[in-house]
């Protein structure tokens, strides 16, 4: 596969503090790359450096085989960015906003109008073309923000947390839109706090912490790194402390948590863990409501690798 972006030894410092530390990675044509990391891990700084919005202290960034710099307008032509904050003109209608941002890239009026219509269809804003941003809900505003960022049909698109504070309907619309863009050939770099979105969308994930890559790979590759193989959750009331400490002593058990009437037992490996736990409850005459087993999620992997949640 062709390399669309190549970041080599990227370093960025703010007032002597290293925000991004000798980062090296590649993005391949046609993939959706998830960029994950807790707040302050260097995700936004990395993206801003790639886009030449920030100067870099060391390293080299190559996009479409050419070195990226502020005046690389030929490269910029092929890039679309959807920032987390909605960036539109309050005085312009939905269609005029998209027309303006598309017009910064596409000179031909006929082509531009076709692209604008396609962008509107992609985000599902057909009924709201003549609306002003103030008349739109938060979800619709996000969709407009996306349409403004991708209307010129870029080959490389950066999505920076586009689904934050968005209603489920708009969220699904946005995620479907991203899949469609990818199917149509766009390479996507995606940052988010929602693990289920990463699992749903991304082909590959890079996990950043303190300005460094701590792990990267496909979803399955990352999950295989986890010490956990199975996680069993049980709804049970008034569980004695002696029972919890008893379960924690089992050979294959990694950890036991009991909070708000939910017991979570994680296992490093082993078979028939669920059957064993049910048998133990029966023997000790412990009544429970629901019990279910699941494979470790990307969130569990993330917690193991970074030692903290995404919103920490």
């Amino acid at each position: 596969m062709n390399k669309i972006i190549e970041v080599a030894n990227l370093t960025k410092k703010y007032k002597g503090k290293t925000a991004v530390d000798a980062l090296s990675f590649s993005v391949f044509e046609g993939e959706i790359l998830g960029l994950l990391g807790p707040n302050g891990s260097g995700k936004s700084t990395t993206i801003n450096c790639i886009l030449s919005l920030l100067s870099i202290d060391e390293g080299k960034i190559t996009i479409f085989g050419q070195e990226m710099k502020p005046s690389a307008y030929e490269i910029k032509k092929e890039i679309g960015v959807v920032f987390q904050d909605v960036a539109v003109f309050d005085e312009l209608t939905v269609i005029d906003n998209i027309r303006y941002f598309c017009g910064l890239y596409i000179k031909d009026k006929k082509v531009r109008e076709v692209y604008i219509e396609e962008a509107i269809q992609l985000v599902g804003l057909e009924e709201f073309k003549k609306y002003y941003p103030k008349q739109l809900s938060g979800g619709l505003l996000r969709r407009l923000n996306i349409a403004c960022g991708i209307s010129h049909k870029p080959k490389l698109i950066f999505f920076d947390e586009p689904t934050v504070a968005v209603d489920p309907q708009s969220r699904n619309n946005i995620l479907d839109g991203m899949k469609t863009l990818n199917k149509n050939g766009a390479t996507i770099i995606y940052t988010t706090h929602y693990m289920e979105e990463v699992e749903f969308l991304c082909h590959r994930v890079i996990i950043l912490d303190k300005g460094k890559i701590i792990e990267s790979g496909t979803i399955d590759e990352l999950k295989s790194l986890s010490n956990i193989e199975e996680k069993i959750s049980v709804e049970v009331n008034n569980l004695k402390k002696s029972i919890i400490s008893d379960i924690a002593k089992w050979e294959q058990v990694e950890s036991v948590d009991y909070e708000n009437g939910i017991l979570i037992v994680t296992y490093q490996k082993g078979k028939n863990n669920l059957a064993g736990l049910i048998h133990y409850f029966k023997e000790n005459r412990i009544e429970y409501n629901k019990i279910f087993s699941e494979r470790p999620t990307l969130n569990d992997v993330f917690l193991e690798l970074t030692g903290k949640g995404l919103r920490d």
Partner: protein
Amino acid sequence: MTVFKTFLKVLNKNKFIVILYSVILLFFGVSNMQTQEENTNFISSKPDVLLVVSDELEGITKHFVDYMEKHTNRKEIEESVRDDALFYRDVNYIIFINDHFREDFLSGEQPNIEVKSTGDYQASLAELLVNNYLKVASVYQKMGFTEEEIMQNIDKTLEKQVVMEVTSPLDTDQLEKVAFYYNFLSYSMLAGCVYIICLMLVSFQNEKIRKRTIISSMSDRKYNRILLLSNGLFALLLWLCYVVLSFILLGEGMFSRQGFLMLINSFLFTICCLTLAFLLGTLIRSKNTINGIVNVVALGSSFLCGAFVPMEWLPNFVLKIAHLLPSYWYIKTNELLKTMEIINIESLKPIFYPMGILCFFSVFFVILTNYISSKRRNIG
């Protein structure tokens, strides 16, 4: 064209505020024309005079009293309140004609007249009338004329009217109106420019939109150049509209040299407004603050610099503060021009100084804007 078209769309969405400022200018321009239509350059005035006559009212005494009654407003005031009347300017001049006035005059002696005066220009006018009469009468008396002949000759001499023709080409009435319009224009122009240009800069230079523009394939220089030209074009069109309006409202006054020079002065002021608006637009981050800024800058400087109230009515300390504002130098030039009779290089020298200061302000604002912008870029 994309940026320019969007500029026009944003402008169109805010056109009412520009129309409002223009309507204010139109309203005050028209109302000023109507209030000044009755104005004349010279007004005849008669002093208020009290004549206290102790002599018999006959002969030269009666003639003198009739003469004074004809040329003054004769007042009747009780003896007890005469001094109060003088103090409160109910009367400007009190003439006491003693009981031997006629007798003394006809015998060739200096007639005895006592006066009390407020000392103002109306009193001086009354004094002039009295002195004129007595001098002329004295000449005819010394020439040996009879009392009847003296009175006839006094009438002939004093009733001769001097016809005075003003040869100056200066139509002060018209120029007064032109100056009022152009002085008031400082408010509309400043308010319009600051409001629209600040709004445009806040919209287009909004951090999030700016970020999107920087990552686009349009060069930053080109983008800034289009924005600068668009704003410049707006200011130029606004100035042209106001100039056309001035020709419609003021007509022949605008075809004078003074009118033409006020037009040039307003152009320099427009450039100054444009640069000031750019400076303020660079400093402002929120649209909510624009109205406040317009009120402080446009209304404040218009009040301080004599756009609404004539400069000569303003206290000295206010005028000293106004020296720091471009509007003061603009209005000062207009005030100088409206009284300027002869227009040549020599006579225009006094207006070069305030016009030069207007240019200095423009350059100063440009330098300051560039300095602040570069500081901000470095921080980013």
